């Protein structure tokens, strides 16, 4: 794996590499390089199987982190290509020309995070939630509980307990709650 | 006997046939349940279902043919009954011979298809795409069943030189060795095999199987229409059994004999259905075009030579 990363860093601006385990590595590259790196991995390094694509909301830094996970069926190794994009007006170059299933992932990300992929087929269509008009629902600043309370007629009288605290009180009522346990509660 | 008395006896016969059909249907499901290790429905469930269907308040219509579909189906069953001698009493104008006449075998063959065609028109007007698919499948299978069945009927007609069911029954009187089962074994074998398709139980029940995605013609029908179709189905089941009893197993001399014989005939198809899983339409069509059709040809050839 290290050899591959060394080889790749000659051509691509790899800012970070994490060796998770012998068969799994994550590399981080700037936004503009990501698609060309994925293409290179697919065409020359044997990472021909597209496993999945996902997104993490780094709200404190104002960024979205995109992950393209690829698999090499011959060496049985995985490589994840990570890249950061801006949270405001999030937009990323589309990879729909590499694998057809990328269409669906990009459609999902468009709906769930509001990331636009110009040129990706059917990217504007509804994916899972039909007729959604609010802020994209997987963004961390979307308060799902508040939305649910305002929209879905919560039944009055319902009590909600934190399962861990509730069970500890019920099973060990005499034991004082220590600092360590309190940490766990958070 | 006046025509009014005749009509009275015919209506009474229809009532008996309807209830016997319901009871047989319930017994069939009960046997299926017991084979699966379940307790199964109560034996009076079909009557409850009929009552429930009649008591449905909403009726939805898609046009005149939509109404007429279930009526046609019921007409097919009742027509089959009207021209079929039920119990042989020694005279063509007996109490339970209904309105059978010379050449009623041809009419009966027609009435077998009549209900199906009516349903095709009704379901077609319903506009549900699955109904049309179900009808297409049903008619395809029905055509495959009718071909060997008609050949066997013709063979029997040639054998006794008549198209009257009454005369065919009359010719089989005087002991079981005179039954067509023994005098014309090829025609009898054809009928016994093709009967499985005509009865419409598993393995040939894909057309009306409720668990298929396409439940077929009945998709759009509800309430009273469905009640009509259930009654028609019960009458048809009994009448098919009576037809085969008359043609192959020597008819019946009393209602008791009729009930015993139709029970056994009906349960021949039920027992086969309990053992064999459902056929696809193309499988069942090819099945009928193999052994039953060949036997039908043999039966015809032997009696035309």
């Amino acid at each position, binding site marked *: 794996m290290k050899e591959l990363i060394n080889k790749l860093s000659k051509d691509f601006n790899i800012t970070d590499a994490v060796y998770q385990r012998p068969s799994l590595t994550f590399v981080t590259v700037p936004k503009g390089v990501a698609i060309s790196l994925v293409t290179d991995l697919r065409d020359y390094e044997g990472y021909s199987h597209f496993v999945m694509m996902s997104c993490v909301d780094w709200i404190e830094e104002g960024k979205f982190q995109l992950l393209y996970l690829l698999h090499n069926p011959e060496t049985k190794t995985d490589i994840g290509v990570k890249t950061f994009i801006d949270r405001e007006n999030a937009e990323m170059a589309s990879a729909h020309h590499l694998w057809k299933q990328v269409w669906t992932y990009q459609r999902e990300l468009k709906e769930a995070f509001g990331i636009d992929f110009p040129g990706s087929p059917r990217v504007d269509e509804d994916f899972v939630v039909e007729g959604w008009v609010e802020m994209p629902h997987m963004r961390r600043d979307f308060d799902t509980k508040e939305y649910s309370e305002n929209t879905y007629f919560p039944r009055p009288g319902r009590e909600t307990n934190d399962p861990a605290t509730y069970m500890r009180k019920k099973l060990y009522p005499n034991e004082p709650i220590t600092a360590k346990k309190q940490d766990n509660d958070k | 006997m006046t025509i009014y008395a005749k009509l009275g006896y015919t209506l009474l016969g229809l009532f008996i046939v309807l209830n016997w059909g319901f009871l047989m249907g319930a017994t069939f499901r009960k046997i299926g349940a017991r084979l699966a290790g379940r307790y*199964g429905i109560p034996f009076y*469930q079909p009557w409850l279902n009929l009552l429930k269907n009649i008591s*449905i308040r*909403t*009726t939805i219509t898609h046009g005149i043919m939509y109404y007429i579909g279930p009526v046609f189906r019921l007409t097919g069953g009742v027509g089959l009954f009207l021209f079929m001698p039920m119990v042989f009493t020694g005279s063509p104008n007996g109490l339970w011979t209904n309105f059978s006449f010379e050449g009623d075998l041809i009419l009966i063959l027609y009435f077998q298809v009549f209900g199906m065609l009516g349903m095709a028109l009704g379901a077609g007007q319903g506009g549900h795409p699955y109904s049309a698919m179900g009808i297409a499948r049903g008619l395809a299978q029905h055509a495959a069943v009718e071909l060997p069945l008609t050949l066997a009927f013709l063979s029997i007609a040639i054998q006794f030189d008549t198209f009257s069911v009454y005369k065919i029954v009359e010719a089989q009187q005087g002991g079981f060795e005179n039954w067509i089962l023994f005098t014309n074994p090829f025609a009898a074998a054809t009928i016994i095999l093709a009967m499985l398709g005509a009865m419409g139980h598993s393995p040939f029940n894909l057309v009306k199987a409720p668990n298929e995605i396409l439940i077929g013609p009945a998709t759009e029908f509800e309430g009273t229409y469905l009640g009509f179709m259930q009654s028609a189905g019960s009458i048809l089941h009994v009448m098919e059994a009576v037809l085969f009893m008359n043609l192959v197993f020597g008819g019946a001399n009393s209602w008791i004999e009729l009930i015993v014989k139709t029970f056994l005939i009906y349960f021949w198809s039920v027992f086969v259905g309990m053992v064999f899983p459902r056929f696809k339409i193309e499988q069942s069509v090819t099945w009928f075009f193999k052994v039953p059709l060949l036997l039908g040809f043999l039966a015809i050839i032997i009696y035309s030579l």
Partner: protein
Amino acid sequence: MSEKDMNDKVNEMLQRSETNVKKAEKTFIHPEDEEREVVAPDGSIIKINPIYDYFSNEKPTEEKPCSGVIEKFLNWARAESIWVLGFGTGCGSIEIPPLVTPRFDMFRFGVQMRPTPRQSNAFIISGYLSVKTLKRVIRTYEQMPSPKYILALGSCTINGGMYYDSYSTINRLDKYIPVDVYIAGCMPRPEALLAGFMKLKELIKEGKGEKANEYARNFDEYKANQKKIIKDWNMPDYNW
């Protein structure tokens, strides 16, 4: 064609596509279902509105029960022959198949499954109900002939259950369609479902299974609640 004509045509096309895009943003109706003018086979131009042309748009009306003994007799028949629609909405739908197995065997109580809404009386809302599914449930419920009954299975239909804070699942089913019997639990066992059927039978025999009429009576209220959460209402108001 002169250059000006060409420009005009391009501008016109651009404008049309812009209006199309704007329309698509505003409404969720599929282009095939939009109200528009079409050329009939005989050459005349006719206006069509597929959603209202294909479906009946009449409000449901209350259907009066028969009187006295007759209604009691019919109610007995209805209670003893409950036909359930085979429609699973959430995790609870896995509790329904055991009912036809030898261990639970709902057939002995006259409960049977039907594959089409036209032939069924009872509808089991089995578990959490997302807004997307609610849309299908409403369409199916309205297609069932009255009298019709709803069994709500699991805590999710009562107060949201463990999905009480989800953005896509509803909290209270009875705000959107009238419910006859609630079966509490997460998940209720098949025995609980059978007990629910027994309760439903009691209710029907007492003449209390008239929720379809209640739906017709409070139709506007139910419709308003449904439309509040189904933002892409691209079907007729009442479809049967």
